[in-house]
């Protein structure tokens, strides 16, 4: 059961990372980065590291995403 959950989370990790890196719309890429950090937070809990789960979700998922959105709104929003 836990092994299956592990494999599902790993597949989700790869899918969100690929979408974040390859999508042309920068706003979509940044939101996918935030979802990537959320899935990684669940992965930390499965690896028995609750401190890291808290730190990752709040530092990458909230703060870095806000920095990205603030920068994207002042520069180009689309296109590579």
């Amino acid at each position, binding site marked *: 059961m836990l092994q299956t959950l592990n494999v599902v989370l790993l597949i989700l990790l790869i899918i969100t990372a690929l979408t974040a890196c390859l999508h042309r719309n920068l706003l979509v890429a940044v939101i996918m980065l935030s979802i990537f950090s959320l899935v990684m937070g669940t992965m930390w809990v499965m690896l028995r*590291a*609750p*401190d890291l*789960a*808290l*730190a990752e979700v*709040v*530092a990458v998922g*909230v*703060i870095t995403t*806000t*920095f990205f959105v*603030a*920068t994207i*709104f*002042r520069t180009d929003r689309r296109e590579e």
Partner: protein
Amino acid sequence: MKKILALLLTCALAALLLYVVALLPPMGDADNPTNRHVVPRYLEQGEEEAGTRNIVAGVVLNYRGYDTMGEMAILSAALAGIFAVLGTGRKKVGNAFIDRSGVQFSFISRTAAVLLIPLIMLFSIYVIIYGTDSPGGGFQGGAAIGAGIMISTVAFGFNTAQNRLPHHVRMILEGTAISAFFLVGSAGAVGGGNFLTYMLPSLATQIQATFRTAMLLVLEFGIGITVGVICTSILFALLREEETYNVEHAG
């Protein structure tokens, strides 16, 4: 052409890394070299030597305390770099695009912010205080404080948020972590031990443990406040637009 070359390079790198991964011992094995040499000492004597029930916090604050001091210095250095590039905003209150947007701050976001921000602040202070006994700690709580202030910036406007936390207030709060580390470390050195020793030999034996818990709390709060205020300063620097803002095009 360049794309195919880069793809080949990445595939070669992936093949090399996966080959090395296959040679590693299986994950989670009880007699891996990582679980045998140093770790039993940390797990068995961590609670009485570091004074915390959360062993990760004990390692971060006690066994590797210098690393945490350097981490606060890295945050301050990043803030100094951002101020050097984007300006400190000390002179006047700047504008931001979120103040000028055609859509007014909606009733939904303002109401949600009014309900959520006190709970976020309460939760972050709880995480900081209980950082030594349960998962959490200074950085997690501090980042949550920063997130709460960011939500208030987005919901109520940039000028309102900057009037609440002007530059001279933020400047004092950003130095809290390094000052706390210096004070606690000097207390250790003056009291008869080394720098950043929490159990001072010159105190009475009954109050040594209480003194250590108090010092750890001071450090956690220092780290928390500094991380929150530095993240807020970085967001203000990224949002702020000066009045003289020219975009130079080449032709």
